[in-house]
């Protein structure tokens, strides 16, 4: 559904210029320390991140208004809304994205996480807010911030590329840099094989890496998580496809090493 351009630019401009700075209570020294890249104990991390968000939105709005005749669309996609489990493990997982924007410039939100019904805890939950720029026929460059709510509240800067590699391989890559300068990375590759016009097999691999140990979080340098699996979905409509699948997951941390095979049942929806 396309949104009225005028409405969109008015709202975003208003929001980025007035509402966010006001709510965030951004002060001059926030900008100063942000620009110089310094991080002192006096300045709260929250403010630092607020500056990031603010800058992003401003960038986005200026870019979007530069192409006034372009059409704006909004695309929500829940690639995975699923139950995943085996004998020991029962998780509800989500992987949703939403973009709003033109062909060239998009505001891209991504959220991933899992919830354990047994233990009543979130194993992982995060939200990324990204400015996405179409830099090549098949590729978007994305820059922004990630707010992790679980397992710990952290903020990371995010830089990544998302697009379609040759041979129709869907790629989502991101580098996360936290306030201490730790570097983490994530690469997701997907491929679609049509068994019929509506029955689609999707192999998928996800690799999470860390550049160095992060002791307080138990993160070990190297591959921290490897996930390979497939999902077989049936597109009742293009927008609505239930699926089943399998995942092999291997996790490596300073505290433990574990691997497991899990079955998944879920639904893929978008609009």
């Amino acid at each position: 559904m396309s949104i009225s351009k005028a409405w969109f630019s008015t709202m975003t401009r208003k929001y980025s210029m007035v509402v966010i700075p006001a709510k965030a209570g951004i002060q001059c020294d926030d900008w100063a320390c942000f620009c110089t890249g310094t991080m002192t104990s006096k300045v709260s991390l929250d403010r630092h991140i607020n500056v990031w968000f603010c800058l992003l939105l401003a960038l986005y709005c200026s870019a979007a208004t530069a192409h006034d005749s372009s059409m704006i669309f909004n695309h929500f996609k829940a690639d995975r809304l699923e139950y995943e489990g085996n004998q020991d493990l029962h998780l509800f997982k989500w992987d949703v994205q939403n973009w709003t924007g033109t062909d060239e410039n998009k505001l891209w939100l991504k959220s991933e996480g899992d919830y354990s019904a047994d233990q009543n805890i979130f194993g992982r939950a995060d939200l990324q807010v990204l400015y996405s720029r179409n830099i090549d026929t098949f590729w978007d460059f994305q820059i922004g911030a990630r707010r992790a709510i679980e397992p710990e509240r952290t903020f990371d800067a995010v830089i990544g590329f998302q697009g379609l590699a040759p041979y129709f391989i869907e790629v989502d890559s991101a580098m996360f840099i936290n306030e201490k300068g730790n570097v983490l990375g994530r690469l997701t590759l997907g491929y679609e094989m049509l068994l019929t016009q509506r029955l689609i097999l999707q192999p998928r691999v996800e690799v999470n890496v860390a550049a160095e140990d992060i002791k307080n979080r138990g993160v070990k340098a190297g591959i921290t998580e490897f996930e390979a699996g497939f999902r077989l979905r049936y597109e009742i409509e293009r927008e609505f496809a239930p699926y089943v699948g399998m995942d092999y997951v291997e996790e490596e941390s300073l505290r433990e090493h574990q691997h497991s095979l899990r079955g998944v049942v879920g639904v893929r929806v978008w609009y």
Partner: protein
Amino acid sequence: MRYWVFSHPINPALKAIVGHHERRKFKGRVDRYAIAWLMLANLLPSLTQADVYRLSVSEKSINLIGETQQAVLADAALPAPTLHWREGEDVTLEVTNLLKESTSIHWHGIILPYQMDGVPGISFDGIEPGQTFTYRFKVKQSGTYWYHGHSGMQEQQGLFGALIIAPQQEQQTVDRDYVVMLSDWPRADPQRTMARLKKQSDYYNFQQRTVGDFFADIQRLGFWETIADRLAWGEMRMEPTDLADVTGANYRFLINGKTAEAKPHYLFKPGETVRLRFINASAMTHFDVRLPGLKMTVIAADGQPVEPVDVEEFRIAVAETYDVLVQPQTEQAYSIFAEAMDRSGYVSATLTPRADLHAELPALRPMTLLTLADMGGEHAGHSAHQAPDEPAVTAEVDHSHAERALAPDSTMVEHSGHQHATADAPPNPHAGHVMPVADASDTAKPLSYSQLIAVQPNHALMGPPDREIKLRLTGNMQRYIWSFDDTKFADAEPIRVKFGERIRFTYINETMMNHPIHIHGLWQYLDNGNGMYNPKKHVINVKPGQTVSVDVPADAEGEWAFHCHLLYHMDTGMFRKLIVEKAKHEHQ
């Protein structure tokens, strides 16, 4: 409150007597009275004078697909009333907008002052709700044309109708004269379709290659050939099944506003000569048209007479028109069968001696996949089956891409018969063709552009053009962005030419789609190797990977639209403003 369409400008009294009812009842064809008027008009050309035609554009609920949908119609009719003009007539058209949004009517293929061309933002401001815009111009041509909305998606929502212009001197005497207006009617709201394409460009393609096809290809072509083929397409991130962006999954195809189930029919008596005026008013669909059992003689393309050429089939690109003569000799019904190019659907009508007699439908043929040779250029190395080099564009513009065929040793590019629309479909008649020959007597092949030869020579076409403009037809199927020279309309400067120049446009299609290129207000003389007998057209279909040149005499000042006539391509950016600048006194 309805406006009648006064469709022939002879004499108001005559109209009052016989006009309206006949025209309403038989909209879509010229009835007997019209023919009588034509004859009268031929006898008394001095009577030809200005006349006023009125159209009102409004929204109306219609039910074509088993559910009620909103259509945007002129005079509440789908298609809009056929307008009958006369060459030399000064027409006045009052178009009233009864919608809640702005509208416009564009007279497709008509040579007129640019302010009358009906493109909002270029020729005028559009017609606001409740307003009436008066179009006034002199009709300087004759033949089969059409008119349609040029605002938003209104054309896709039903705002189109036929334009039939009688010549000063009728060259072709026929017993019956019918309009066959092809169109694609959408299930989904057009804006929604646009959004879907932006989010998932293969949304409507349910003929994609499956794992089963992969193994079938291995059996047929061998393992390595199949792998090489998949790698070549994968490297380009393109699909050989991508013949149409919006398919039968979204469309019902119509003839004169009727589905095949409604059994539209045209009457004839054996021995009569029938002229069928084919108009493709689709937003997105090219059709392959056949009349099994009847020889078709193409006598005009895009309203302009061409040397008669006998064909068994022709492809009609979006916005093209073809006049075809048939002479059925027996008391038998014939099917007018129009398949969508991607075979995702069809529409048919019956040419019949009796209204209750219907023709049997021929089987829908399998889709012919794009080949690597279609994509040409850098990827040709994968196939080495490129068409032989032939002079000029003659070889380049053959009209059915099926003919982009395959040398006998062809391996990976031979996919016909591989996507079966019907299990018992006859073998694809195109498979195995090499190249079309510009031989009008050969009826076994579909019409090719190279067979279109103008009846009247244009000596102005001789000699070098004043200016050459190369225009690459570009796009990004994955993101659903279409453009010229990789630049969308929103970001592009107008193309400026000088009045009186002859411009040679060379279209280089770098995409895997067909693009029917339309220039408003100016003719395009297709360079198909016939020199000053090159035919003039208002739409030139440029096939995947092909290069086509046209000569465009810039003989009309003003600002003109220049675009791909596929609606969703035009709307995503495959559009330019062409400015023909006033001649200045230059001192050199």
